[in-house]
């Protein structure tokens, strides 16, 4: 198996329980694994959480980590996927001084070309939201930082797989 490090998206389906965050994060912490991002949300099934964890690792190690995650009682199933196997997005928010919107005409073009969206405008500031891939968000960040950004934040990755996740059937059975 390849020792080469790659970016993997780990998807974990779990019960929705307090304490599980601690349990899962301990798995990474013990092995000195730094996460690029982590996102926890509801899944397609009621009362089942879906975690999307992004990290850089060799395939051999990611498999072992999956084993440790799945071993936790309240974890239903865990998978790992490469970039090519998933459709993924991140989201970000920029807060920028309002006068720049009018003083710097170029900003409006940047917003339009990047498919970003103005969420709100008031006298002091306006907020731009952009969803996309990491590189797109980084590009937008670079372009806007020239004018000064009051606040910036970016979400963790969320992803769905191109192929069917076998979990769907398993989860359906849970509902009955």
């Amino acid at each position: 198996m390849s020792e080469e490090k790659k970016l993997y998206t780990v998807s974990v389906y779990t019960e929705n329980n307090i304490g599980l965050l601690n349990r899962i994060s301990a798995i990474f912490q013990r092995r000195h694994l730094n996460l690029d991002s982590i996102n926890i949300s509801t899944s397609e099934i009621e009362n089942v959480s879906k975690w999307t964890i992004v990290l850089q690792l060799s395939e051999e190690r990611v498999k072992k980590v999956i084993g440790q995650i799945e071993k936790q009682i309240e974890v239903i199933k865990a998978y790992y996927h490469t970039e090519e196997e998933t459709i993924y997005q991140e989201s970000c928010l920029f807060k920028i001084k309002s006068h720049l919107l009018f003083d710097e005409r170029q900003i409006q073009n940047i917003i339009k070309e990047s498919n970003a969206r103005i969420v709100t405008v008031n006298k002091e500031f306006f907020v731009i939201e952009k969803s996309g891939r990491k590189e797109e968000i980084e590009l937008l960040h670079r372009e806007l930082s020239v004018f000064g950004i009051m606040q910036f934040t970016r979400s963790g990755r969320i992803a769905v797989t191109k192929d069917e996740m076998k979990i769907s059937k398993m989860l359906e059975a849970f509902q009955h």
Partner: protein
Amino acid sequence: MKDTQTLNKEEKSVTTTERISGSEAIIRCLLAEGVDLLYGYPGGAIMPVYDELYKFRDQIHHVLARHEQGAAHAAQGYARISGKVGVAIATSGPGATNLITGIADAQIDSTPLVCITGQVASHLLGSDAFQETDIIGISTPVTKWNHQITKASQIPEVIAKAFYIARSGRPGPVLIDITKDAQFEEFDFSYEKCKGVRSYNPVPETDIDDVKAAALLINSAKKPLIVWGQGVILSEAEKELMAVIEKAGIPSAWTILGASAVPTTHPLNVGMVGMHGNYAPNVLTNECDVLIAIGMRFDDRVTGNLDTYAKQAKIIHFEIDPAEIDKNVKTDVAVLGDAKDSLSKLLPLLNPNSHSEWHQQFKDLYAIEYNKVIKDDLHPTKEGLTMGEVLKEINVQSQGNAAIVTDVGQHQMIACRYAEFTTTRSNITSGGLGTMGFALPAAIGAKMSAPERDVVAIIGDGGFQMNIQELGTIFQQKVPVKIVVLNNEFLGMVRQWQQLFFDKRYASTEMINPDFIAIAKGYYIDAQKVTKRTDLKKAVEEMMTSEGPYFLEVAVEKEDNVFPMIPSGASVSDVRLE
């Protein structure tokens, strides 16, 4: 896994509803799970439960340990000798944290435990209240599962789940933390045993194709070697293992936790693998063509340097825990499932064989080990007593029927190397965690769990003092355990490493010890000290025939070393005999 505790007590399941307090519910749940013995220590946050233990004292025996760590280890000893779930109970804060070493030990050695801790009232959670600790956070990495209860109505379901999780699949410790208000609260109680948890698959199904692939490799092997571990004992697969070994004529070695699953004197039992294991199985691990690992996890103390471990061999791994597959050693065939089930599927597919030439290699290497190490350990000619000859005497007088409970250090390795086991579940030791202080309390639990058996604790002078207070438990409960302290006046195992790898700089390993006999007698335990070889036999005899608890101190050679030894980081085949 077969669970007699579950099956026998099935009729106790309570189905009718009754209005009772949370604390009474806890006791009723324990009774429904077949618990009649538990270990613990009271305190503020668990007092309602102790009040109920008082009321139910005819049905459930609570053993007051002298330290919560002792209670946890005692529960482990209880579980290890019987296969049943051990139960320990403690108050919040320091009571709960004192359990942690035992819980961590149970986690790494797959011992089924349910630990119940009291917690401050739910409205005080997170306020740094008196004796509040985040025991859920603290215990998370060392439990198979844990849960905090803040409402009485959660008690039956959570406790049922706790027992189910602790005993099923690869067993392990579970901690349940219960706030004081939930203990007081009244609710409508009914109890139903847990039959499954939807997110948890305790025993993966054995794929018959994997078993066939394993059989194919084994049948074509010229030099097969079995290494079995505790998984065989946990799944009660001793008979199936023996049948496989005998039919296919495979030399078979064991990890420290696998000891006693097959009698020591069985001709195909070739000894222990690992750091202080036997010479032949260690050396020949690197010569076998097929290595069949059964219910073991390729711990680093077993494998030495992984880069040079059994590289020439095809590896077959019988294992219940999917996370263990390829974790340390890459397998060619992995057979997931319960060992009892997969070995019985394997047996009919195996060709009868004897592998006598291959087996002869083990005998030849044993002869080398015997001359270089074993002879002097068991039949010393020097003046000082050896740990080995004490073990030999215990073997003779117990006829191999005693359960041996060991602490951690040189005496542990000597005991595991030389104890002669005839019965399974007879070697109770802290393997994965190597917890000094384990043996004395674990022996209490083992003896109380199996009163018909002789239980002999073998302990170093260092480890004895780590939970020496449990002599009080032995005295109060009149537990007839036999305690042997092999006193070398050193933290022997650490001293050995200092001698071999740190130029004999004996930093803080010498022990100026108290009068152990006086201490034992202070607890009204019969005691005797042996300093001369000529007194050993009679002293062991007195111990083995005593009715009550007995303490035997043997002054052994101060600077003896345990060999063979695989220095850490070395290859198994570089095992040193001196």
